[in-house]
């Protein structure tokens, strides 16, 4: 789960990391009022969406009067960034910027540890820095049993700043960021940029946090930060039904059990010249209700011209899936053709249920995918 910038910075602040005063707004009036309430002489109005490159897309604007803030907020609220509508803006006091550094921490698959990445060349082009001048980034893995020791934090501090006072300040911020990362169940946390003001003070100007979805059950206060307005509605619907669903642009609606097989099914649709309309994993449990929900979500997409079920029953009982198909289509008759591939646990019972209700099913994946692609393209 992604947090918005204002949420991440609020958490940073709770762990002692210096941030600039700011307030989130959902309307133009609120944005203007925020600028007035914050005081100062210059502000930033920043789009709060789960997309990178906000600045480049015109979602971050500088303004010098509350009236100007109103105008900028009016331009940003409602705009589209990478397909997402901006519903909220953060109004913050603008800082004078002396230098910009990058400080990030991510769970690294290779070392199997949280790893810090820091660079004095922070700001919006950090990806390019990583790609073209990797020597400008210092990587420091952390053994979670000991936490981030001061000597490692200081090593990173001196990598960013030759001045011992700044190095110490940065080291403290890294330890605070590490504490926030661990306590919030993050898979990623970053400060970009970490700014040194002309007065020599360190401040986290922008921040990002990604929470491991598996942590949310035991961290209700973090789970409550989820902003469903900023997500694709069908994906929210699917998550609430315990399905993993990602909407794509094609016309073959796919219902599969297991993530690997679901991806392989999408690949096979493409292999036979079709385009998948979605990734949908109904998971391992046997529950006809899941199938009903899956069909409802898929048929809500007007692009879908054919539906493909690919079920390999292990834990999943294929007769439960067959019952789900029958129940769902009885309540809401399908307007598009359906191709069913079922094999595995209770396959004979499933086939019988389907036949008695006027469906045909095959046990071969390639045959089923080819049929679905042909049907989606208007063939037989």
């Amino acid at each position, binding site marked *: 789960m992604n947090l918005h910038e204002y949420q991440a910075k609020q958490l940073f602040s709770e762990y002692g990391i210096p941030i600039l005063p700011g307030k989130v707004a959902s309307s133009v009036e609120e944005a203007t009022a925020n600028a007035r309430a914050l005081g100062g002489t210059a502000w930033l109005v920043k789009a709060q969406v789960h997309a990178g490159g906000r600045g480049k897309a015109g979602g971050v604007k500088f303004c010098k009067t509350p009236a100007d803030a109103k105008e900028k907020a009016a331009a940003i609220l409602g705009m589209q960034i990478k397909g997402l509508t901006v519903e909220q803006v953060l109004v913050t006091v603008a800082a004078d910027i002396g230098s910009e550094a990058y400080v990030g921490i991510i*769970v690294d698959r290779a070392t199997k540890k949280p790893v810090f990445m820091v660079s004095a060349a922070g700001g919006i082009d950090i990806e390019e820095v990583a*790609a073209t001048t990797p020597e400008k980034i210092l990587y420091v893995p952390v053994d979670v049993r000991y936490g981030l020791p001061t000597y490692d934090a200081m090593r990173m501090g001196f990598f960013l700043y030759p001045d011992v006072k700044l190095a110490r300040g940065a080291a403290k911020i890294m330890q605070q960021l590490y504490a926030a990362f661990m306590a919030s169940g993050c898979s990623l946390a970053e400060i970009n940029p970490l700014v040194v003001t002309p007065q020599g003070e360190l401040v986290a100007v922008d921040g990002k946090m990604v929470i491991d979805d598996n942590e949310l059950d035991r961290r209700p206060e973090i789970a409550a930060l989820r902003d469903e307005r900023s997500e694709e509605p069908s994906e929210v619907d699917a998550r609430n039904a315990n399905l993993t669903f990602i909407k794509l642009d094609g016309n073959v609606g796919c219902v599969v059990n297991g*993530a690997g*097989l679901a*991806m392989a099914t999408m690949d096979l649709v493409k292999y036979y010249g079709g385009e*998948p309309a979605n*990734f949908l994993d109904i998971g391992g449990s046997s529950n006809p209700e899941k199938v009903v929900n899956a069909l409802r979500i898929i048929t809500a997409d007007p692009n879908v011209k054919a539906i493909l079920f690919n079920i390999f029953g292990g834990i999943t009982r294929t007769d439960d899936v067959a019952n789900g198909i029958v129940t769902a289509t009885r309540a809401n008759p399908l307007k598009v053709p359906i191709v069913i591939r079922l094999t595995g646990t209770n396959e004979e019972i499933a086939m019988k249920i389907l036949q008695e209700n006027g469906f045909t099913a095959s046990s071969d*994946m390639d045959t089923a995918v080819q049929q679905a692609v042909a049907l989606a393209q208007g063939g037989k």
Partner: protein
Amino acid sequence: MSVFIDKNTKLVIQGITGRDGSFHAKQMMEYGTQVVAGVTPGKGGQTFEGTVPIFNTVMDAVQATGANTSVIYVPPPFAADAIMEAAAAGVSLIVCITEGVPVLDMTKVYPFVKERGVRLIGPNCPGLITPGESKVGIIPGRICTPGPVGVVSRSGTLTYEVVYQLTRAGIGQTTCAGIGGDPINGTNFIDCLAAFEKDPHTKAIAMMGEIGGTDEQEAAAYIKEHMTKPVVGFIAGQTAPPGRRMGHAGAIISGSSGTAAEKLEAFAAAGMGIAKRPIDFVELIKARL
């Protein structure tokens, strides 16, 4: 012959009285696995299905029965502790089936098991099966048959698909290993490839990877350097849009690394056979046996 498990495997099941644990305990017993003990705190002294003794702790179970392998079916919040408990109790192999274990929990568990020299498979995996001898986990027994192919995979149902296609074509397996799709898992492709290389009965290997991470690329480099046996590979997620999570926490494309194209390139550079579809394994493996 086989890798990791065989007919001498003595299994303790953590979470044997739970919904999933009890169902799969029966399946494993029917398959012929030596299930010597179960663990459910508070139910020590009872028996499962009238034959398998239940203990309060893994330590008690190991001391009383000599179990050398553990399989874990406990819910995600307790899985990390269950793994450490098994490692501390002295089993040499732990298979963790549980899906949804927080990755930060695994950053603590991983060094704990490594320092004790214990092999961990998973979490979030279907486990192991050595056809005709032993099954530890949830891979359906009837889709497997004994034979010369080692199977290793990051996914569950995709493993079943490939194994099913192989078995239908009359090609059996030494051992099938589902290593799981989480960002931090106990055993990677290289561990399994090394084991299959050493196993005299394995003549060829089928390997199913996914987008995300660099495990497959590292495995390809290992194959090029160290393997004498032929390996056929597949990558799921060739058409997945970048940056989107596809169910497995592991299947995230980060930056330029982890794409299907990059992994397939590494496979080609290692001289591996490349299956474009699951069904292609059949012909590619046949040609290499």
